[in-house]
């Protein structure tokens, strides 16, 4: 692994406690304030992780709330405190899967042209001064989506966790409950596909405000 990429991920190395381990220990012992500090520490990461997958702020906020509620209830079951981050991400991954499953199920009972309706957010942003920026962001998300859509489900999950959520291979392995070797294979395949579409990313970079 390149040291340059690795330094971006504040993952604990083997045998060294994560910086949040004392907080997790205190939270496990029943300290609400310690858990509140953990929420402050990880809320943004979890929210963004969910947002990348749902593309809706409201849904992402709701799911983030559910993730922390579940984490609070199940914290006593966490055996290794240094795995808290990957454990939290595994809860979030499952919640997003549930959400997508529910959404697919609901879409079966909705008219097929429901998706062509103008979203409320679209009309809303037209009235705002930063409307152009917002539309540009939406366009860029579409481009990122195009790159991501070319990957298989597992490749996509590993790729997103590695390069958007900035988790280490070890943390991804723990969150997805797969061996590190499997994760590396999926990551390699995802990167090969990503390289084929790197021109899209280049234009994406140029368009960024």
């Amino acid at each position, binding site marked *: 692994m390149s040291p340059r990429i690795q330094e971006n991920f504040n993952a604990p190395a083997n045998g060294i406690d994560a910086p949040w381990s004392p907080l997790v220990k205190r939270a496990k012992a029943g300290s609400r304030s310690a858990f509140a500090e953990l929420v402050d520490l990880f809320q943004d990461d979890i929210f963004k992780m969910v947002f990348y997958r749902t593309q809706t702020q409201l849904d992402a906020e709701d799911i983030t709330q559910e993730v*922390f509620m579940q984490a609070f209830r199940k914290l006593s079951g966490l055996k290794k405190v240094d795995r808290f981050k990957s454990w939290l991400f595994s809860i979030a991954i499952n919640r997003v899967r549930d959400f997508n499953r529910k959404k697919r199920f609901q879409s079966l009972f909705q008219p097929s042209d429901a998706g062509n309706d103008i979203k409320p957010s679209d009309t809303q942003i037209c009235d705002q001064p930063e409307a152009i920026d917002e539309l540009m962001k939406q366009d860029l998300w579409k481009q990122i989506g195009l790159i991501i859509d070319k990957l298989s489900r597992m490749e996509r999950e590993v790729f997103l966790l590695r390069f958007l959520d900035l988790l280490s291979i070890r943390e991804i392995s723990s969150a997805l409950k797969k061996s590190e070797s499997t994760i590396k294979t999926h990551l390699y395949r995802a990167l090969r596909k990503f390289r084929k579409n790197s021109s899209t990313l280049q234009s994406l970079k140029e368009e960024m405000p």
Partner: protein
Amino acid sequence: MSFNKENHPNEDQLIWAIVDEAKLPDSIREHLSLCPRCRAGIKKIEQDLNNLGQTARQLAPATHRIISLPVDKPSKIYRWPHDWRISFGAIAAAALIIFTIWFSIPKTIIIEDTFSIMAEISWEDDDFMTEISTLAENVLPKIYMDIIGESYLSLDDEFIKFAVPDLGTDSLSHRQRRKGVKLC
């Protein structure tokens, strides 16, 4: 240390170098560590990936929602049944108490008590059956029988013989018939 300047790794090997450099053969690793062109190639891929991550983070909105937690963590009294060791211990203790009480009571007392209870039930049953038989013979209570005068009727065999004599040899009609007396 010299390295083969012409033997550059291919695209796949560069990608493997990003994923897990340790998986590459020693010769390629050595080449990658010394070749500026290959290092630049790896740096370029990493830069693209970093850009993607940064772009995504910039595009994602900020959340302002305050995470609300449950009002209070469940108390220990509520939580103890979820701990299987405590639950198991409690069940075992309850079973032990029940067995202790059961075996501490002398069995003779239990048997005697059982017999006396059965005898009592049997007497109660007899009384009940007697009452049912009385009712089957005469449904009306005794007070009604007193009112209609039925209770003073002693319909015993002697009274019946007196009222309705047998048609045997001792009857008056039989004796008169033998004497040749016409009754009608």
